[in-house]
């Protein structure tokens, strides 16, 4: 009788493996999880796009909850996201800082003139070094930064109404309640 029981063991093992693999296969392997969650925003000191002489640093994102949106005029998906960002700024939901990733000043200026400017300030990362410090793999990507200047969440891809309502808005509310 034990042999009958034993012969079902491979079946259960297979089932356990199947469940384990099902979880794994449900993940998107292309999404690289940020290793900077709960860590302070990497230090940066960049020129402000379109404002000669002005600088923006990571210190500017302390004191209130904000979003750091990595975008570029060459990024097609960023166009899809832009109306949502404009709406958020228009409704004063959250401060949005922009990181212009490897962009040219004239292209950036034209793009913002065409689509609108939702940003509190735009850091000009022409060399792309700050983007690497942030672990950016593509655009658009958005970091949710808390009052102490720590990264609490990274949105890979476009922020649309659904992403805002379901993921980011609740987090922003939670972070605003924090010290």
């Amino acid at each position, binding site marked *: 009788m034990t*042999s009958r029981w034993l012969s079902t*063991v491979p079946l259960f093992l297979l089932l356990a493996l199947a469940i384990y693999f099902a979880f794994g296969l449900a993940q998107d*392997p292309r999404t*690289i*999880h940020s*290793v900077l969650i709960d860590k302070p925003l990497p230090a940066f000191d960049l020129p402000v796009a379109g404002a000669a002489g002005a600088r923006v640093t990571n210190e500017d994102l302390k004191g209130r909850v904000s979003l750091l949106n990595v975008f570029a005029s060459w990024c097609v998906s960023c166009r899809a996201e832009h109306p949502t960002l404009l709406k958020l700024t228009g409704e004063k939901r959250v401060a949005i800082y922009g990181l212009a990733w490897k962009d040219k000043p004239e292209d950036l200026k034209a793009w913002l003139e065409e689509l609108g400017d939702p940003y509190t300030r735009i850091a000009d990362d022409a060399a*792309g070094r700050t983007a*690497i410090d*942030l*672990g950016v793999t593509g655009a658009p990507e958005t970091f949710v930064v808390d009052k102490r200047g720590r990264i609490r969440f990274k949105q890979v891809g476009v922020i649309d109404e659904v992403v805002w309502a379901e993921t980011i808005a609740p987090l922003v509310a939670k972070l605003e309640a924090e010290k």
Partner: protein
Amino acid sequence: MLLALFFSLSSAQAVEPDEMLTDPALEARARAVTRELRCVVCQNQSVDDSDAPLARDIRILVRERIEHGDSDAAARAFVVARYGNYVLLRPPLEGDTLVLWFGPALFLAGGLALAWFYIARLNRSGAAPAALSAAEENAVRRRLDEDTGTR
């Protein structure tokens, strides 16, 4: 002839002349390091192979670190600190990657062990049946003849 041609092709690289370091020893080290880093855009290629602009940025970054005096391990760690272990083409041997490294071998060993025990069990229970008595043997023969319809 075609085979010879095939095997003579060198592996792809995306390094451009303007990226290369002047010191050949440092350049060789930089190439070795970037060959072990995954391109985060074209994720099945190494940073050395990939044509993606971000891969180029990381190649230049690695060269800067090496010129700065970083060891190969330190240069790799610099990139891993920003992108995580996924960026290493050879996963490190740590707590959470032990399953990745040893899992397949363990499964194979486990499967072989199971098979061994199963076959051993079969052999044990498969004792030769007792010989038939004369009456039983006649009964069998008669039955066989009926079935085949011969004789």
